């Protein structure tokens, strides 16, 4: 039936109604002569001078050198490899802020004026002008280094410039889920959800691979590579890239100060790529066993027979240990506290860095063959001399374990704590005299860590939060990360900015509150720390306990007299070379105790120190260099 239907189907091909435009009649033979009337019409011919081009004309390039950061994205997008980056030594170089001393040069023997370079430029510095004439036999004039005046320096107006419609960059970050303030304020559960595979892929796709982050990172992490790997869906490759320079991906994926994001080109006009969260996504997405396998793929097969002792199991010490162990040296790390990790464990609250994540990183380091002996304090359990005699080299990386005091009146009261001390107690689960109200002095990340930890404990214990944080700096110059300030506020921490501590008011042996005064300026004319206060503007912040979080100091008494004297010192710190070497050949120092200020710098210092020790021990550090 069906076949019959198709066979008898009428052919409709020619029946479709159409419009026939057959001319009705031919014109007269003389009709074309009407064209002669054109003799008396105004001619359409334009004058010989070139016309000004249209407002968004795509003519020769201009580039605002002040705005340009030399990221090279224009060269990347160029269809025709017409754009090459030229290194210009005269220009400033600023890794921290993501500025490279190079500018695009354009080959007009290649360019097709598609303006994709304009549409993708992260800064909006490059544009196409309305200039369009260049005639020459000299080939070299077709290769130009455009500046804001354009090809011939004639200052033509901009034609095709940056425009919202045609912008090719995604300036918005993928949203990151967080636990709501109400749900998180009474526990130490991790706040940030982390990316799922889909959002991570989209976030990774925002990267333009300019490499500014690589330069800005203290340890030069291969962020472009691992972001690209995440985008390609190859998380294992990403982990491999991460482990090339950083044995603390879990830690840095959560609490890194992300210098990379400060330098990120996309951040010029939009929100930088969430490099830190991408790192966290990658490492979370790979199973611990697989991570170990990837991280230890380049471990040396042979043992060197040399022994190295490392004092302190913070990021600097463990990074040094990891590198040295991978090079085949026997490494022992001594930690005075119960568990390894140093400040990462005892300084960073659990809601920012869950301990099992830190343990995962440390497990990889231990798997490399590093022996970690916890609860062994040098100077107390083991003598420094013994350490020296048992090992070929010694590294001290004991960090800044001692809180500094404001030394204001009342600061010697029993209810006054130092932040580092208190954070360590919170981590260790030690009890202390928690009060219903607390005041924190300091405006850095440590101050917020303790303030927010106290807030949680108060909420848990008393069901309400009363924590006051007093920072010397103004709100827009706070030392703490912006998200700390915001999240702290969400959790009930009252933040007072621009105020200096005056005294701790004590009544009947109990702390009544903290008195602060308005801070007029922090530094004197020579830039030294010398705050000026308006003594008339006094506020009393009622609090039953006070925490000082104004900075830390190091305790190096364990070194012993001989070594202390043999070392060179600089403002209370051991003076070291770039590679961590000290005045004593076998002794190296790394981390916060000599440099600071954060985990990623400590990791960087650890790599440098390990490389120096390997050289000192006579081992070829070729592996490390190759990895760089």
């Amino acid at each position, binding site marked *: 039936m069906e076949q019959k239907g198709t066979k008898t189907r009428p052919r409709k091909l*020619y029946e479709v109604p*159409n419009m*026939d435009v057959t001319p009705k009649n031919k014109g007269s033979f003389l*009709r*074309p002569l009407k064209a002669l009337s054109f003799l008396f019409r105004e001619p359409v011919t334009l004058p010989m001078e070139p016309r000004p081009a249209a407002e968004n004309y795509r003519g020769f390039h201009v580039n605002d050198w002040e705005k340009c950061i030399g990221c090279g994205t224009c060269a*990347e997008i160029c269809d025709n490899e017409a754009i090459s980056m030229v290194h210009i030594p005269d220009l400033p170089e600023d890794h921290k802020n993501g500025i490279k001393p190079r500018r695009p040069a354009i080959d007009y023997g290649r360019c097709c004026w598609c303006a*994709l370079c304009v549409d993708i430029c992260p800064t909006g510095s490059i544009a196409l002008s309305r200039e369009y004439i260049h005639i020459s036999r000299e080939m070299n004039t077709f290769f130009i280094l455009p500046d804001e005046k354009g090809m011939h320096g004639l200052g033509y107006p901009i034609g095709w410039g940056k425009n919202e419609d*045609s912008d090719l960059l995604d300036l918005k970050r993928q949203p990151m889920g967080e636990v709501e303030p109400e749900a998180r304020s009474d526990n130490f559960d991790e706040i940030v959800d982390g990316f799922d595979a889909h959002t991570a892929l989209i976030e990774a796709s925002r990267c333009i691979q300019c490499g500014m982050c690589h330069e800005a990172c203290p340890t030069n992490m291969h962020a472009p590579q691992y972001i690209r790997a995440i985008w390609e869906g190859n998380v294992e490759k990403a982990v491999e890239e991460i482990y090339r320079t950083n044995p603390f991906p879990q830690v840095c994926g959560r609490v890194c100060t992300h210098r990379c994001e400060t330098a990120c080109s996309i951040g010029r006009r939009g929100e930088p790529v969430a490099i830190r969260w991408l790192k966290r996504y990658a490492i979370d997405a790979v199973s611990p066993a697989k991570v170990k396998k990837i991280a230890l793929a380049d471990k040396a097969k042979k043992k060197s027979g040399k022994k190295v002792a490392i004092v302190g199991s913070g990021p600097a010490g463990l990074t040094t240990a990891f590198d040295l162990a991978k090079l085949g040296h026997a490494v022992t790390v001594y930690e005075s506290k119960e568990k390894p990790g140093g400040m990462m464990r005892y300084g960073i609250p659990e809601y920012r860095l869950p301990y099992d994540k830190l343990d995962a990183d440390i497990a990889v380091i231990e798997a490399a063959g590093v022996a970690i002996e916890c609860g062994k304090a040098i100077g107390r359990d083991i003598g420094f001399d013994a350490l020296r005699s048992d090992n070929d080299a010694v590294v001290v990386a004991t960090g800044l374990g001692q809180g500094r005091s404001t030394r204001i009146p009342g600061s010697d009261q029993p209810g006054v704590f130092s932040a580092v001390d208190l954070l360590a107690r919170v981590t260790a689960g030690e009890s202390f005299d928690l009060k219903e109200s607390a005041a924190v002095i300091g405006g850095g990340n440590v101050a917020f860590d303790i303030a927010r930890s106290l807030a949680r404990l108060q909420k848990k214990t008393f069901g309400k939060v009363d924590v006051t944080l007093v920072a010397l700096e103004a709100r827009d110059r706070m030392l703490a990360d912006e998200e700390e300030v915001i999240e702290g506020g969400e959790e009930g921490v009252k933040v007072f900015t621009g105020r200096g501590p005056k005294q701790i008011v004590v009544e009947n042996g109990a702390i009544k509150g903290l008195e602060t005064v308005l801070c007029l300026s922090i530094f004197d004319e020579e830039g030294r720390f010398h705050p000026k206060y308006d003594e008339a503007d006094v506020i009393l912040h009622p609090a039953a306990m006070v925490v000082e979080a104004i900075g830390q100091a190091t305790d190096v008494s364990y070194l012993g007299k001989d070594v202390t004297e043999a070392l060179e010192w600089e403002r209370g710190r051991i003076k070291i070379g770039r590679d961590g070497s000290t005045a004593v050949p076998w002794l190296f120092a790394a981390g916060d105790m000599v440099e600071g200020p954060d985990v990623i710098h400590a990791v960087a210092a650890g790599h440098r120190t390990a490389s120096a020790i390997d050289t000192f021990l006579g081992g070829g550090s070729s592996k490390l260099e190759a990895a760089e």
Partner: protein
Amino acid sequence: MRPENYRPVSHPPSHEYELYFGPNHPGIEGNYAIRVRLKGDEVQEAIADGGYLHRGFEKIMEERLWIQNVALVPRICVPDPVPMEECYSRAVEQLGGLEVPARAQWIRVMMLEMSRICAHLFTFGGNAATIGFYTNMFWGVSMRDLFLDLFEEITGARIYHMYITPGGVRRDLPEGLLDRLAALLDDLESRLPDFEDLFFSNTVVINRATGTGTISAEEALAWGVTGPNLRASGLPFDVRRDDPYLVYPELEFEVPTMKDGDALARMMVRKAEVLESIKILRQVIARLPHIEGPVRCPLPNPLAWNIPAGDTFARVESSKGELGFFVVSTGGAKPWRVHVRGPSQMHAVQVLERLLARGRLEDIAQIMFSLDACPPEVDR
């Protein structure tokens, strides 16, 4: 001067001879050659010889990112570049699942129809020039130039706009453009009677073009003729109506046809299409101001833009006929394969060879131009 080693070329003793038409001759838009075997002035056989404009587009498109190819595609057909952009972009949109915002769709239609008018005006001129009517060419070309001025305002370039991208268009229209376009359309319309007087109802032209290079309806279908050439043989087929895209279903327009299928019919169809395009553009001018919104859907970072694996065939009615892009993606950042089906691939090769073989020496240029074949589209 005569070179020292010059030897006169002796033709075989025959009344048949061969003639090389092109590649440098005015009979066709661009660089193309025909080898004809003649007996007297009667063509016995014609053999098309292309490849002079071969750039290996399909190969180099495989080497470039999806977005980079936007700059490449308009160059496939020089006189009518916008349909190329549209067709490629739509193929990518179909593969990538991109939604084109309404405003962008209307702007695209506007661009396409402007480009059609430009191409047809150019052909007016070319058609006239092939039979010695240069005035018409001067008029057609300068009229077209006024449209190019508008293109320049919209897109920043006269010929290669690179304006339509996957997901929409690159920018919104400049202020007051629609008014200027409306004025230009009025101007064009007022000029059409001049063209009519000088050319389309010119006895000489009509006599000259009638019966030249006739394609019957059956032949047109069998030979794969499309576009105005097909409609000149009485077949009212138009991709815009049969396989609609963008907002064409919302637009009112006719598909003009002629019955004769000769050079004159093809010219007349093109003339009528210019009127239809004016009609469409007037509708766009009326509607576009009331359509707000973005002109492009959000695109991923073009340096890291993978299109899901799959293949698709996108079609557009260009001024020459059915234009198709067959695009294959393997899920990568670059196309795996792009096949361009230009209407001239039929018109300039098999159809032309067959038509010329029936014609005479003096008709060759006219037949070639009346087919409006575009050699860069053949060669790619």
